[in-house]
């Protein structure tokens, strides 16, 4: 039995509850020490379907809508809270409402004291059914995501911002020869990359963080037992809901086979070029010997015919070189070997190669090289090919007695070369396509049926490879000017 003071306090509490909790959405219950309900608010009807009248006076042990397991859970929780009032824990209890709906409530119990004696327990039961549903949905989608990651045929690895592996899938394990995830999680991702690539990987990590992603960077990776293999990695930064970076996710692809086939292609080109050039050299040299008076004089007709054969051979040599350069470009095997090159000299060499055509067409060449030295650090072969194509175009696509102008100017750290002619020009509707492979403008196809449509494609690719730029202005029947910007220090 409670003393008078406690009884009064209890009564007061009951009254206060009536006044305070009528409109609260959570169920508020005031239990006496034995677990009997002294007060319960109207929310109970909404959540459990049972009315205040049905609940009042009952003990929680009589809650038929909660099964025995949950009743025990509730009893244990109350006991724990009574024993240790400082503990702030809550408990989740499940039951079934009067109309058969599932109830999940989060229960928190707060012992109320009069003096040092506990006289009642105030319980708040919050309906968390919806929250639970959302939680389950989240769990489901997380699970699905994990399944996707696990079953992906691409090797996916997640690391924290310091590069420690936090998650990876089976494909990653297979690629590196590990048998379980435990072997990898917690390890530094750099341990999977050959040390010679660490510097590059670190720089790329910073870059990824800065721009949010990185695509197709190649590293030498390591298997568990230290064997090296080439792989291509793409990664992105994973953000939290506030947009803060929290992790890296990387997809890695072993490109060993791909590299092998590239190598095979490269070898094929090398062999093919040798095979093509051998008979070409023989044809060239034998024609040259015959033409060069070494075996007695040929009559005029013979000389003329042989001249044609010789010219066709030269054309074939150029074509072979062109095709070789294209395959090198497209296979990425083009080697740029920079040395100090005088652009003016290269252009003069090209002009001397074209001397015959220039004379035959009575073309006037105007040179303006300025006074500064025209030295660039570039691959001389590439520079030669660029100007060989541009100048032979200029000579080819003009009328007789036209002008071709070449000017070179220094502009800060680069040179601007201008090659202009007053020739056929490029039709307006075809200007966007002139750097496209195999494209030839309509107005010159008849005049010069021999072009390959590869020259400007090569020129543009080579200039881009060298970090330069090319553009042009043209008007049909008035002429064309090409502008070529070459950095004086070309990247290797």
């Amino acid at each position, binding site marked *: 039995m409670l003393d008078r003071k406690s009884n009064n306090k209890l009564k007061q509490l009951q009254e206060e509850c009536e006044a305070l909790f009528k409109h609260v959405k959570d169920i508020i219950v005031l239990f006496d020490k034995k677990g009997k309900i002294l007060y319960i608010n109207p929310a109970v009807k909404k959540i459990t379907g049972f009315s205040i009248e049905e609940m009042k006076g009952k003990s929680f042990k009589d809650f038929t809508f909660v099964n025995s397991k949950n009743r025990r859970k509730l009893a244990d929780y109350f006991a724990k809270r009574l024993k240790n009032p400082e503990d702030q824990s809550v408990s989740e209890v499940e039951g079934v409402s009067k109309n058969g709906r599932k109830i999940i409530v989060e229960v928190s119990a707060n012992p109320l004291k009069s003096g040092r004696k506990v006289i009642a327990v105030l319980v708040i039961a919050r309906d968390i059914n919806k929250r639970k549903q959302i939680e389950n949905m989240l769990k489901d989608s997380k699970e699905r995501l994990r399944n996707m990651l696990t079953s992906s045929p691409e090797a996916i690895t997640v690391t924290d911002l310091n590069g420690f592996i936090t998650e990876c899938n089976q494909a990653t394990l297979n690629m590196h020869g590990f048998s379980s995830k435990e072997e990898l999680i917690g390890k530094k991702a750099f341990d999977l990359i050959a040390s010679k690539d660490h510097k590059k990987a670190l720089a790329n990590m910073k870059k990824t963080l800065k721009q949010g992603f990185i695509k197709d960077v190649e590293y030498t990776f390591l298997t568990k037992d230290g064997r090296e293999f080439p792989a291509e990695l793409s990664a992105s930064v994973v953000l939290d809901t506030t947009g803060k970076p929290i992790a890296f996710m990387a997809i890695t692809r072993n490109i060993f086979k791909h590299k092998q086939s590239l190598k095979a292609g490269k070898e094929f080109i090398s062999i093919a070029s*040798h095979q093509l050039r*051998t008979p070409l050299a023989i044809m060239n*040299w034998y024609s*040259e*010997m015959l033409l*060069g008076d070494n075996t007695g004089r040929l009559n005029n007709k013979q000389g003329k015919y042989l001249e044609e054969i010789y010219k066709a051979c030269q054309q074939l040599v150029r074509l072979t070189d062109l095709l070789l350069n294209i395959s090198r470009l497209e296979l990425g095997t083009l080697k740029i*070997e920079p040395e100090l090159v005088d652009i003016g000299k290269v252009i003069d060499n090209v002009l001397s190669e074209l001397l015959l055509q220039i004379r035959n067409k009575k073309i006037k060449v105007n040179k303006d090289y300025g006074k500064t030295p025209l030295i660039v650090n570039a691959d001389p072969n590439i520079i030669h090919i660029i100007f060989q194509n541009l100048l032979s175009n200029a000579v080819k696509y003009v009328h007789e007695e036209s002008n071709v102008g070449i000017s070179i100017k220094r502009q800060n750290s680069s040179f601007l070369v201008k090659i202009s002619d007053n020739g056929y020009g490029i039709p307006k509707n075809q200007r966007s396509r002139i750097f496209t492979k195999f494209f030839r403008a309509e107005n010159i196809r008849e005049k010069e049926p021999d072009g390959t449509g590869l020259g400007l494609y090569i020129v543009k690719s080579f200039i881009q490879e060298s970090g330069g730029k090319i553009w042009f202005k043209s008007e049909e029947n008035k002429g064309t000017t090409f502008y070529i910007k070459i950095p004086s220090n070309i990247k290797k």
Partner: protein
Amino acid sequence: MKNKLTKNKTILLIEDEIPTLEILYDRFTKEGFRVLKARDGENGLELALKEHPDLILLDIILPKVNGIEILRKLRADNWGKDALVIILTNLSDIRTAADTLENGVYSFMVKSAWKLEDLVKNVKEKLKLR
């Protein structure tokens, strides 16, 4: 006149393609040189080390011993280390390999890119005959 300069100079051709070998032989003989021929790498290296020619025109793809190997072996030899060599090939992509061996001082010519006349000029220049 030119024969006087070239008469006492020997050129060794190491080349397996007969038509190429023959035209080079004819052209250099006509120029007055003494010309030796080898049709495989083994024979070529043997002739080089025995005859000590003034200049070697060396193909790369050769039976038995390839051109790069010949160059390596020549450079390891007391006489061969200073021998004049012009690599005459159609493999432009091995230029780097040849350069490395020749310490940057290379003579590397792609057959299909050169006229015989320019080849002769280059040889004479190397032999300081011009």
